Structure formats: C-alpha cells, structure tokens
C-alpha cells in the first residue's frame, strides 16, 4: 500500500491545475460563451405557494411571434426531474406547489426584451391552502405531498432507550433549530443548450454532476444515451447548490432550444437564483438524554425534523446523513433517532455542503453544553468522558476499526487556543467590560463518501488514458468548482505513474468523453475517486509491463514509448477501474445498522466570540480547527477547504437569514442576504493530524464538508460562555441577542458562568 511511502507530488502544494486560466481571466464560465445565432431564455414563475392553474394568457401588446414559448405541453418525454423520486415537474402543468415554480419558458434573440415579456404572461390561479413550516406540515391537516406529508422517515435504534431513563442520574432535554442557508456561489446558475434532430441535445453549464443532468435530459426529451451530451463549463462555486438544480435548468434551456431552433442561453440573475433555487434544509431537533452520575451517556432520544419543501428532490438522502450524524462522536448504549423530512409549499430544499450533518451536529453539540451546564461539569470533560475510541461501536453499531484520536485532537485544540487560561482571563474581564468574551467547543465527525451501500450502487468507473501526443488524461465525471478536483486527481495519477504533474491533464468534463465516476458530492472525490485513479494508474503500469515486459517503465521516455507500443498493438491506451468496497463493509438499509461510512474525518473546533452588550453584536474573534482527515494530499488546497467551510459556518451561525413572506424569499439580494466579508472573518487556525486511511487515495479521507459542521455550535457555545445565555437557534442575529439580553438586563440578573 502506498500510504506510508514517500511521495514526490502527492502531499506537495503544486499550483492549481487550472489556476493560471482563472488568474488571467481566460477561464471560460457559461456566461462567457456565445454560440452562433444564440437566443436568450427566461422563466415565468408562480407567484403563489400553492394553487391550481386556471389559465395562461399572453398580453396582446407583445409580438409573441418573435418569441419561442414553452409550456409543459411541449415536453416530449416525461415532465419530471429525475432524482430519487420523480415527483418534481420540469414545468408545472395543472398545479403549482411553491412560489417561483417554473410554468412558462420564453426565448428571444434580444435578452433585453425578456423582462417585459415575462410581465406580459398572465397566469390565473385558484389558490389552495399552503403549508409553510414543519409544524404546519406535521399537523397533517392539509396534505401537500402524498398521504402523510412525510417525504422520508428513518428510525435508528440501538439498545433499549425506554428502560434507560429509570437508571439515569440526570435527564436533559433541549430543542434546537437551524434556518435555511443560501449557497451564494458568486456565479449564478447558468446553462446553454443546442438541439438538432441529428445530433440530439447538447448542454454547456455550471454544474457539479454531469450524469445527473444527463439522466434528466434523457427522460425529459425521451432520448437515448448517445443523443444527450452534457459539458461542464468552468463553475464559479457550487457547495451542493449545483448538484440537483442544473438538471432543471438544462431541461428548460433544452426545451427552448428545441422550440426555437436556436442555441439558447439561460443565466439567472441574482434575485432569480436566490428566490428559485435550492437552499439548506431548515431543521428542528429535539434531544432527550440520560446520563449517569459521572456524566456518561446512558441514552439518547432524538427527534429530528427537516423542511423538505414542495418536492422530494434530495431530502431523503439529506435526512439520512442528518440521522447518521445526530448522535455525535460519542459512545452511548441506548439510542433512538426518529427522523422525518416534511413536505411544505416552500421552494424545494437541496444539497448544501454537509448535507444534513451541520443541522444534526448543531443540535448535538449545543446540547452537550446544555448537559454540561445542567450537571455542573466542564463541557470539555463531558465530551472527553464520552468520546468514541478505536474498537468502540457508534450508533449504527459500526465498529471503529481505524484509529480514533479525538483525545489527541482535543488536547491540541485546547493547547493551540490556550483554552483554559483564556477562559479564566475572559471571566475576569467580562465582570466589568461591556464586551463579553467566551470560548466554545464542538467535537464531531463527518462520514466520507456516500452513505451505507451508496458507493456500491454508484458503481463508479474512472481511470486514465494516454494520448498520441504523450499526455496522460484523467477520465472522471468529477468536476472542478474550486475545491481542487483537477489538481488532486492529477497529482495522484502523476505520482502513481512516476510522471511529472505537467504530463497529466484532465479529460474534458463532457459526458461524450468521460466514464461515470459518480457525482461530485459527499466528500468522495479525493478518497473514493482518487483511489480509483490510483488503482487505474497501477493497472496501466501492469498492462504496459505485461505487454512489453520485462519490468515497469523506469523513465518518462520509457513510459511513453511503452504506451506507443501498446497503442500500436491494442488501438488505445486506457485503464479504467470500478469501485470496490473496503473489505468487511456491511450495511442494512432497513434497520439502519452496519457500516454507515467507509471512513470518518474527525475534528475539534474552538471559537472565540465577543458579544458587545451595547449593540448586541456577536463577533467571532479567532477560530481554531484541529482535524484528522487522513493524509493531506495538498496542504494549501486542504487549508483552503477548511477556512472556506469555517467562513460559511460563521455565516450560517451569525449572518445568513433567509426571510420568507408567504412562502417567498423576501431578501433575495446580496444587499440584504448577508454573508461574511473580508472584515468579518477572523483569523482561522488550521491544524491537521494525519492518519493515512488505507482504502483512500494515498491515505486520503473526505475533507470538503467537515468544516461546515462545527462552527455554528462552537460559536453559540462560546456565546453561552460569554453571556450565560443559551441560544438554541440559528441564524442568531443581533436582534435575537437583544431580545434576550435586554430583558435580562432589566431584571438585573448577573451573568452565570
């Protein structure tokens, strides 16, 4: 196994593969592309959350003959987006189930004519009662999806929770809530489609998962595999927000291209992107926890609810990951988690970095501090007493086969943040100052790759090929959108083949060229797909060796000479590998028991927060992250992942509020949906402890989502430490702090520490 071996390129911070293109303005994003004869498309959307469509009329003041007009009646195949369940129409036909649901598509050669035209399409509705919150949905008085409003339900049980309560020295309950969060990729969703009867449909766009889009287009247009081609353009941020939505937009652009006979570009402006596309699922998590007199966990009962929005989309899998991360990195003999995703008439919620884990971990880690306060124990010590160790079993009875070094991570985090002496100093200073400072901790894991048997179902195929002009090409459907896919996979191939970084290129992200190595999600690219590239590269060396003998090529020249001989004999030089699960993996989808993830990344985060009791602002002043993500393949990219995730987590906790009025996002502008700026993000310290994982590429585990899991609970725990007030809901804005602190000041209660 290569994990322990010294490496030349893996582990080095080589320049980002497409870096120069991005730095000189040469990288081509979808809106930078013009096609000959290209028209522009737009969308007419619902203005109510739920209702029957009575009529669609077109204002005679517009010359509609200049426009291509598409409705559901123009869909040649199935009018559904193909995800887990095909319940979301590509275009609403008889009924709308959320605001900003697409109903009519328009295209015109002049994009400036579109705005007026959208306003000239009149849709009459018969309004129906709408459900706009988890609570309204679970009342089940108005059914908006299926028989029960439940999109998906999981129960995870271990031991016997009901018998545990009587043995408990302490029982602690709490309810925690998280809000929706917008991805706010700086590049909005965009797509160009071109149609011809002979070639079929080709789309270019900003997207994460080419084969997800491919699957939907085949179905919507009723076309065979080879008549649909999906090409990813340079993608300006995604964070999960371009996992499922691009399938809808690609179908829309395709329908307009087919109807108009022209290439059609659709690029959302910021307001449309914010109002109409997916966000992180809002959640409500209730904990009831039994502990013995020493603070050891005896039982956890967790009720987890998410708002899934109007259609199923990815809510089932988001809920699954939330369920599997809801119990934290702790040993507990008796567990019952009941998790439900509820349908509402909100815009469907979707994938966002962490995929349910940040919601579940916010509740668990906030709850740990509530437990600590209730039983009078140091929150650090409470966590330490309950940590998972190697050889333990977690909530799904997965045996922790690999080393678990939570204590080591915790010690490092305490030392780096100078935790105890800072807390002591803050306690002293807080007594007299207007600014109250505190420190908060979060301990957590994040499962790498698809859940349970997911990676086996994906059955990913990936590899390398060698071109006639002596370039190795990495063949994957995993895309680059900033996280470093191109660079990491190139490093792995170059390392394994004994070549230079510059000898290896990425094959174009084009479904006509690449195999399906699965979606670019779930922190799976480095660990799972990287491993396929490592295996395929080793297999290529073996192929060359067997073919030309007597040994593996020793130099670059010998390698390419051997490739040329192989090509002469076999036509092409290509080595692909399929996913193979690590040995001993067992997962039962029915009972939710077994190996939930092939590997876990582990972390301890510490936040220092200052709360100003004059203006009720909370500011993160410093942030420490200590994590074990397997081997770090590229230190600069890895740091960038952690820092970027922490910044998004800070926004999630303290800034980013999706304000909804009657089911519609009211603050759908960057002016009033606020993300952290260069002046808001504190110094972020990034520390890696490396334990190579032998089934990941060169020892890698997943990294991308982990850093979004910990900041929110760490920050709110710090605010509790600073003010003595337990806030249980995010986003936590100054007005929320004011509402509690101002009342408390009136009562003249001293801060409790």
């Amino acid at each position: 196994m290569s994990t322990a071996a010294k490496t030349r390129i893996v582990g080095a911070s080589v320049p980002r593969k497409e870096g120069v293109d991005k730095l000189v303005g040469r990288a081509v994003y979808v809106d930078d592309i013009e096609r000959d004869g290209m028209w522009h498309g737009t969308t007419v959307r619902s203005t109510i959350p739920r209702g029957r469509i009575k009529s669609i009329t077109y204002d005679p003041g517009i010359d509609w003959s200049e426009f291509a007009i598409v409705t559901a009646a123009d869909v040649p195949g199935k009018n559904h987006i193909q995800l887990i369940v095909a319940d979301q129409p590509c275009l609403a036909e008889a009924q709308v189930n959320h605001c900003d649901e697409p109903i009519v598509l328009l295209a015109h050669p002049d994009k400036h004519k579109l705005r007026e035209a959208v306003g000239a399409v009149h849709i009459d509705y018969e309004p129906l009662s709408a459900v706009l919150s988890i609570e309204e949905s679970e009342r089940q008085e108005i059914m908006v999806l299926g028989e029960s409003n439940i999109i998906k339900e999981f129960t995870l049980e271990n031991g016997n929770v009901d018998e545990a309560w009587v043995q408990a020295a302490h029982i602690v309950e709490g309810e925690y809530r998280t809000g929706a969060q917008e991805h706010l990729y700086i590049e909005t969703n965009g797509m160009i489609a071109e149609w011809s009867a002979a070639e079929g449909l080709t789309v270019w766009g900003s997207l994460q998962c080419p084969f997800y889009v491919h699957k939907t287009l085949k179905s919507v247009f009723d076309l065979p595999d080879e008549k649909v081609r999906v090409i990813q353009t340079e993608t300006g941020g995604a964070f999960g927000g371009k996992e499922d939505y691009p399938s809808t937009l690609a179908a829309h652009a395709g329908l307009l291209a087919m109807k108009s006979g022209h290439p059609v570009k659709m690029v959302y402006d910021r307001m449309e992107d914010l109002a109409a596309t997916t966000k992180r699922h809002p959640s409500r998590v209730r904990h009831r926890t039994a502990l013995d007199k020493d603070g050891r966990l005896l039982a956890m009962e967790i009720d987890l609810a998410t708002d899934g929005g109007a259609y199923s989309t990815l809510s089932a899998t988001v809920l699954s990951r939330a369920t599997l991360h809801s119990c934290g990195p702790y040993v507990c003999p008796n567990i019952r988690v009941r998790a439900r995703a509820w349908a509402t008439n909100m815009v469907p919620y979707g994938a966002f970095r962490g995929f349910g884990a940040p919601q579940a971990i916010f509740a668990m880690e906030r709850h740990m501090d509530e437990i600590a306060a209730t039983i009078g124990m140091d929150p650090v010590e409470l966590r330490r007493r309950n940590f998972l160790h190697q050889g333990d079993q977690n909530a799904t009875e997965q045996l922790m086969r690999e080393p678990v070094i939570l204590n080591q991570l915790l010690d490092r985090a305490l030392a780096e943040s100078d935790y105890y002496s800072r807390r002591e100093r803050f306690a002293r200073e807080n007594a007299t100052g207007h600014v109250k400072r505190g420190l908060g901790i979060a301990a957590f894991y994040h499962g790498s790759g698809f859940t349970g048997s997911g990676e086996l179902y994906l059955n990913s195929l990936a590899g390398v090929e060698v071109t006639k002009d002596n370039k190795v090409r990495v063949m994957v459907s995993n895309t680059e959108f900033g996280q470093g896919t191109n660079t990491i996979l190139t490093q792995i191939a170059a390392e394994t083949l004994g070549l230079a970084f510059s000898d290896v290129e990425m094959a174009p992200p084009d479904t006509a060229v690449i195999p399906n190595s699965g979606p670019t999600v779930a922190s799976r690219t480095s660990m799972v797909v990287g491993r396929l590239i490592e295996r395929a590269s080793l297999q290529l060396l073996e192929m060359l060796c067997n073919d030309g003998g007597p040994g593996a090529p020793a130099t670059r020249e010998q390698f390419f000479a051997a490739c040329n001989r192989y090509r002469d004999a076999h036509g092409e030089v290509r080595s692909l590998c399929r996913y193979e699960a690590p040995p001993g993996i067992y997962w039962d989808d029915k009972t939710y028991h077994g190996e939930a993830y092939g590997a876990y990344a582990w972390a301890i985060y510490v936040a220092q927060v200052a709360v100003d009791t004059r203006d009720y602002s909370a500011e993160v002043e410093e942030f420490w992250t200590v994590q074990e993500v397997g081997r770090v393949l590229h230190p600069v990219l890895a740091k960038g992942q952690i820092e970027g995730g922490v910044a998004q987590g800070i926004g999630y906790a303290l800034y980013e509020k999706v304000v909804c009025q009657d089911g519609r996002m009211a603050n759908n502008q960057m002016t009033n949906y606020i993300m952290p700026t260069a002046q808001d993000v504190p110094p972020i310290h990034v520390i890696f402890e490396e334990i190579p994982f032998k089934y990941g590429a060169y020892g890698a585990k997943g990294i991308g989502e982990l850093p979004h899991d910990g900041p929110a609970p760490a920050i709110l725990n710090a605010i509790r430490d600073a003010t003595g007030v337990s806030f249980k809901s995010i986003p936590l804005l100054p007005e929320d702090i004011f509402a509690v602190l101002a009342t408390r000041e009136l009562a003249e209660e001293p801060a409790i520490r």
Partner: protein
Amino acid sequence: MSESWPAITMQVNGENRTVRVPPMKRLLDVLREDLHLTGAKEGCGEGECGSCSVRMDGELVNSCLVPALQAEGAEIQTVEGLASNGVLHPLQESFLACGGAQCGICTPGMLMAAAQLIERNPHPSMEEIREGLAGNLCRCTGFMRIFESVLEAATQTGKSQAEQAHHAR
C-alpha cells in the same frame, strides 16, 4: 442599429477602443459583450459582490454600476491587462502559490482590488488588506488564502524593490 448611438472612446488595457452603445449601457456589458473581455464577472448586478471590479482612471469601480458614458475618455484596466507580455503580475503569482483562487469567479475582481490596494499602499497591514478587499466577496476561501496572497505579493514586491535599490548602488 448601433451606428445611431454616439461613439464612446476609452483606453482599455492600454489600447484605444471605441464603441457605439446606448450611453446607459453598463460598463460591465460593454467590456464583456462589445469588447469581448469576459474576465470581469457579474455576481449580483448591484455593486455588492465586487466580481465586476475594474480600475477606471486609477480608482476601483464596480463596472456593473458605471454607465458607458461615464467611461468616455477614461483609462480602464481589467484583469486581462494585469499580466504584461505573458509575465504574470506578482499578485497573480502569489494567488497561484498561496491558493488565493478557488472557483475563480471572484478572482478577477479580487485581483483588481488587491492591485489597487498595493499600488496605493505597497506594504499594507492585515487590517488594511481586510479593508481594501471588503467590497469583494469570496464564498470559497474564507479570505485567509487571499490575505496571504496579498501579503506575499507585497513582500515579494518589497524584496524586488530592495534588490533593485541594492543593484542601483
């Protein structure tokens, strides 16, 4: 049709360019559509994100808020004009080395803001860097790698200036 609009002439990346466009057309659209300089990006269209930042007569502007008419006679620098004769600008080098660009969509604007900053203030403090880049949103990096890139470029520029001074002696 475009002949009916008055000519607007500006110097873009050192070259005189004349366009005939509606006078209120956004400078961003003139650059992208008429001059085919697609480096500057639209992120919000309302001056919040800074992805469309370019330099106009030595000032950093959001080109989505500048009408073409206002650019008449102005000197405009876009990201395409940052490297000279194929040699990367020190900021481009440092962004490459320090991981200052991830998805790359904010990068052209961020580079222009950073260029403006270090031209005015060759040795900015961390506070000055934060302030100088506060109008440019990056959703990927959490800004740390960008701050490091700017510091690195400032240090390198300082070094090369010191070397030049040394050689001059």
